């Protein structure tokens, strides 16, 4: 038997990868390096300019820091709300066999996403009020779909023989969900969350139109006052945040993803 075992082992070893190595690979280092280089270039360019009083009002550490904080706050809170709504909704949806229910839910989620974000946010503001809360609702409505869809798909793509053997061993339906189905769906669900996060960073720029702050302030002001350094700084910082969040989410994905799959 030991001969057989070691022969099987030889074939098996080919697939065993050194997982640790992947977190710190060259590819992983690329994104932060690019972000840092771009920000340094921006800083260098700005310090070579002579800024007028209007530009100086926005292009200082305090102002940019505050707008960035607002932007991140919107993004992170919106994503957390999305996770809290869309993941349970996706789980419930995966237990519902009715095609009609699926169609209705996805139509609603689709409307949220296919309506232009700026229109959605402004409509909400007209109907209700301006400010942070409404901006948050707009963001959630806009970005809920990827998480909802990925949760459902993540659960549906699980090999039925796995859930059958889990049931056959005497797991209760909840045990099957929490011990087997959700861990196996985690990579797909996190990919959805990652998409939602990046959506949120982009869409949070329109929060400025309803007085909810964020880096959109810099972009719009720069545009209105024709101060290109302000506009460019706002745009570059938003892009860098999007890249950084995507990078962090990617790291989180690899850490949370169960081993063995």
């Amino acid at each position, binding site marked *: *038997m*030991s001969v*057989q*075992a070691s022969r*099987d*082992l030889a*074939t*098996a*070893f080919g*697939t*065993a990868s050194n997982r640790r190595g992947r977190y710190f690979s060259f590819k992983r280092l690329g994104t932060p390096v690019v972000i840092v280089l771009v920000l340094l270039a921006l800083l260098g360019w700005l310090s070579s300019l002579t800024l007028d009083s209007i530009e100086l009002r926005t292009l200082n550490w305090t102002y940019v820091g505050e707008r960035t904080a607002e932007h991140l706050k919107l993004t992170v809170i919106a994503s957390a709300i999305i996770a809290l709504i869309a993941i349970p909704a996706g789980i419930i949806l995966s237990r519902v066999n009715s095609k009609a229910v699926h169609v209705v839910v996805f139509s609603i989620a689709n409307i949220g996403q296919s309506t232009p974000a700026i229109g959605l946010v402004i409509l909400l503001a007209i109907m209700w009020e301006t400010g942070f809360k409404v901006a948050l609702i707009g963001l959630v409505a806009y970005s809920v779909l990827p998480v909802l869809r990925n949760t459902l798909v993540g659960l549906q793509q699980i*090999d039925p*023989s*796995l859930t*059958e*053997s*889990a*049931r*056959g*061993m*005497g*797991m*209760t339906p909840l*045990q099957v969900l929490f011990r*087997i189905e959700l*861990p*196996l769906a985690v990579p797909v669900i996190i990919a959805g969350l990652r998409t939602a996060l990046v959506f949120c960073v982009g869409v949070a720029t329109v929060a400025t139109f309803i007085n909810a702050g964020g880096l959109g302030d810099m972009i719009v002001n720069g545009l209105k006052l024709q101060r290109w350094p302000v506009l460019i700084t706002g745009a570059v910082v938003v892009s860098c945040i999007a890249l950084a969040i995507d990078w962090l989410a990617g790291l989180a994905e690899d850490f949370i993803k*169960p*081993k*063995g*799959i």
Partner: protein
Amino acid sequence: MPPLLPSAALQPQGDSVSEQSTHPAAGARIILKDITKVYPGQQAPAVESFSMDIAPGELIMFVGPSGCGKTTTMKMINRIIEPSSGSITIDGEDVLSLNPNELRRRIGYVIQQIGLFPHMTIAENIAIVPKLLGWSKKRTHDRVEELLAVVELDPKMFASRYPRQLSGGQQQRVGVARALAADPPVMLMDEPFGATDPITREKLQSEFLRLQEKLSKTIVFVTHDFDEAVRMGDRIAVLSERSQIEQFDTPANILANPANAYVSQFVGRGAALKRLGLIPVTQADLGPAVASRGILDVRVGDSLRNALDSLVLSGGSPVAVLGHDGRAVGSIDIERIAAALGGDVLPESLAGARP
């Protein structure tokens, strides 16, 4: 190639299998009575009044074409599929009145797709039912090590691996170990070796028979492979549409006396050859000893099928039968083999095998 032998009793004892530290729970009696399954929206029942009495420790094979309801019938025993009517008892206990989850923890379940959980290590996979039953860490750990040894996988090497790092045959062994984890008296096996290559399958079959000899579980084993049924089963149920039992008997009796045309068709050609595989050479009336001729010699542990194989090569002249000590104890030829099958049954079974 190991000889095709009917029961584990004829296999050499496997000394590599470690001694069980606990006494395994022997099998339970399963009685199925008038089990019927009608799927909603379907006119014809998938299984119609199926009754069977399975003795403790028996390995029962359900054989039939795909779609005949054999898997449905098996899955009603652990209520993966709920019967529409009828009763099932395991050791006198009414299965249908038990909590299905608790019931399933006492029934080992092995499926063709194996269903090892890819995000759990081999040890975690095997420990699932013990954990559900609330065993202590130490007891679970010891049991996992013991079972890995039983299915001939080195615990040190395999316990912390993930399923995808194992070959198909190794995965199926883990599947068997996992089903045995809480030492259930009953095992349900749905084409467990169906997805493996022929060589691995044969190895797994003989390993499993050797294991079953020690464990004496009551096993319902579903297969569409009649040869597998002949090789492994204590009794075979040949099933047709709606899981109707066409014949329920020992492999030897089904091969010798197929109950009807359906069974003969299922047995297929070569029934006599398959029967020879079930009969040890010592059961034939051996002739006087002849001189040994190397590879043509037959050993006392071999089957009559092996003897026939040698006779084909010898051109029909009697070949020597060697005892355990390597000395000739007799000889065998075609007539003696035919006599062992019983002259009166042979023509009938051959006639039955012809389409």
